[in-house]
């Protein structure tokens, strides 16, 4: 434990890293306030810029973008009723009504404090939970990993966007994408059509940039002539004693909810903030204020969405299974920089891991500082005209993808997956399941093959392993979760 604290504290002694955290927090907040960009797109766009950095610095950049953009979505949610990120959608319910009453400063103050508490809480949980989970994960063999990845994929059914069946179709499509290229054991070519640029498979980064950034560009083109709302804000105010008395229970509850939701594979800050908001309303003594400007509503949503960031890093680093869309990009970042996500990361590169945790902790304080003192400036950035912003995103996406391997093929992949993502979204599919499927695809197939080799082709031996059986049962529950929750809602509706 002392070693862990020492490694985390060592971040403070690295001036370059501190500088990077500050700069990246600014970039993250900018990305967060710009509608349409968000943490995942921001991280995907910045990944190529981290190539020349040492691993700790690179992952710090990506994780700082994650925490700061997740918070920053609330700035525009409160001031102009436009959530900068989907995770801040619930913040608009009460943030904007408060701003309309001339209390934007108070709303932002509550959002900043709740987000920071949520973020710090989840990092502390991450520091304790990740090594414990790693201890359990040491025992995992191919059958357990296979069942675990199936569980991760099944959780796609429960994420809010898209709908269960569409999300699963997206996930299966992503897994299929992972089969393109030479098969790892036999070297036999699959779906390459004679194109040897695809021999190593489709790169994660260009696909991610295409799915998240380029498809968003096409989606945003529908509202290209949008005129941003004006806003009124004098200064951000820290919550008063009365405010703290009203929100502390909500904040603590949302910290727990957000961290738990974050730990679940494929779930992220958006789901966490919605549940955090709903629970804040359920337990509130002043339910009638919700939707009209309740500070408990803001605290519930904001503490939960930032708590999900640390939670989502647990399965990402310990199991190599992304906890959210943005952690999928961070996972790719870990691989690009030669860090193998999994339990061995906690023995082989324990200092690196805790330095990353330490940097994430600092990032939470950095965005608190920026949120309190510069929210007004950042809110103005959301007024940047779209005809200037999105062409720049196009340039960053294409050049960023090229930079990774100096291969034009990656640029074409960005364009193709931009169109694929746009078409998918137009037909009600979310793009995150495709990204998660692509990451887990290779893992599913490899572990299934190894399991079959271990048990001489006997499929039934996989569920016969106790831990694998637990994950398979959880996977089935994950698949049935939407049905169960629909039944419960129906039953509740009938009873009320």
């Amino acid at each position, binding site marked *: 434990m002392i070693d862990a604290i020492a490694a985390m504290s060592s971040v403070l002694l690295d001036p370059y890293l501190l500088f990077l955290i500050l700069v990246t927090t600014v970039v993250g907040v900018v990305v967060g306030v710009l509608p349409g960009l968000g943490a995942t797109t921001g991280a995907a766009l910045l990944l190529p810029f981290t190539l020349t950095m040492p691993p700790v610095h690179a992952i710090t950049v990506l994780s700082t973008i994650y925490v700061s953009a997740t918070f920053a979505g609330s700035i525009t949610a409160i001031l102009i009723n436009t959530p900068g990120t989907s995770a801040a959608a619930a913040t608009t319910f009460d943030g904007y009504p408060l701003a309309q009453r001339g209390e934007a400063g108070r709303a932002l103050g509550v959002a900043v404090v709740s987000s920071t508490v949520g973020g710090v809480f989840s990092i502390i949980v991450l520091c304790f939970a990740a090594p414990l989970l790693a201890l359990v994960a040491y025992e995992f063999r191919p059958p357990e990993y296979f069942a675990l990845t199936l569980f991760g994929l099944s959780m796609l059914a429960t994420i809010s966007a898209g709908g269960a069946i569409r999300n699963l179709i997206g996930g299966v499509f992503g897994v299929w994408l992972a089969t393109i290229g030479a098969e790892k*054991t036999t070297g036999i070519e699959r779906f390459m059509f004679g194109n040897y640029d695809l021999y190593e498979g489709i790169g994660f980064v260009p696909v991610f940039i295409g799915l998240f950034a380029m498809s968003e560009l096409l989606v945003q083109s529908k509202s290209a002539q949008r005129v941003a709302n004006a806003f009124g804000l004098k200064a951000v105010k820290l919550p008063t004693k009365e405010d703290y008395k009203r929100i502390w229970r909500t904040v603590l509850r949302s910290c727990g909810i957000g961290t738990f939701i974050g730990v679940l594979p494929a779930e992220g800050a958006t789901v966490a903030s919605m549940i955090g908001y709903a629970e804040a309303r359920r337990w509130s003594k002043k339910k009638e204020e919700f939707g009209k400007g309740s500070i408990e509503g803001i605290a519930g949503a904001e503490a939960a969405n930032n708590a999900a960031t640390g939670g989502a890093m647990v399965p990402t680093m310990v199991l190599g299974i992304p906890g959210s869309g943005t952690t999928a990009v961070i996972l790719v970042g870990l691989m690009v920089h030669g860090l193998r996500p999994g339990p061995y990361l906690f023995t082989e590169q324990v200092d690196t891991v805790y330095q990353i945790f330490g940097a994430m902790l600092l990032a939470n304080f950095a965005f608190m500082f920026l949120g309190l003192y510069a929210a007004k400036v950042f809110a103005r950035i959301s007024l940047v005209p779209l*005809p200037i912003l999105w062409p720049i995103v196009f340039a960053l996406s294409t050049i960023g993808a090229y*930079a990774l391997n100096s291969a034009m093929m990656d640029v074409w992949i960005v364009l193709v997956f931009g169109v694929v993502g746009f078409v998918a979204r137009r037909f009600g599919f979310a793009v995150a399941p495709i990204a998660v499927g692509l990451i887990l695809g290779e893992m599913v197939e490899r572990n299934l093959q190894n399991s079959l080799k271990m048990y001489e082709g006997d499929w039934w031996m996989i569920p016969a392993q106790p831990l694998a059986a637990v994950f398979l049962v959880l996977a089935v529950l994950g698949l049935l979760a939407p049905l169960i929750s629909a039944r419960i809602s129906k039953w509740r509706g009938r009873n009320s």
Partner: protein
Amino acid sequence: MKNLALPATISIFSIIIIYLALDIETSPPMIVGDSMQPRAFPIFLMVLNLVLAALLMWQGFGEEPKKRAPLNKTTIGSLVLFPLFYVLTTYIDILIGLAVVLFLMSFFWGERRIWVAAAVGLITPAALFFLFNYVLSIRFPRGMITNIFYG
């Protein structure tokens, strides 16, 4: 009827992939051992997709088809810029490709001040070129302009 179009498209895609997968070479048993042939996993995935498409179809029965707004000019214009970027980059130069596409994109998106659109088209690729070349030491692909620069 429109509710059937999406599941039908997914089904056709899955069947095509299954057909292509059947063409994948088989590996000698001594390499594969007790595991699967390389074609088995994609086929299994696409069969799963067929089942999911059937469920999607079943879910869509009796529901009013969702009306989608037709694509507007800006979206169509942006989509057209993708192949234009490919052609310009492949046959002329990536910097020229970027400059033209960024200028046109800015214009399509509603920027009517030509000098602003031109500034976006010129400054952005130039800034990225110098950033990647000098700070990140990443060389751009050769083309008309980059050849002059790299010699």
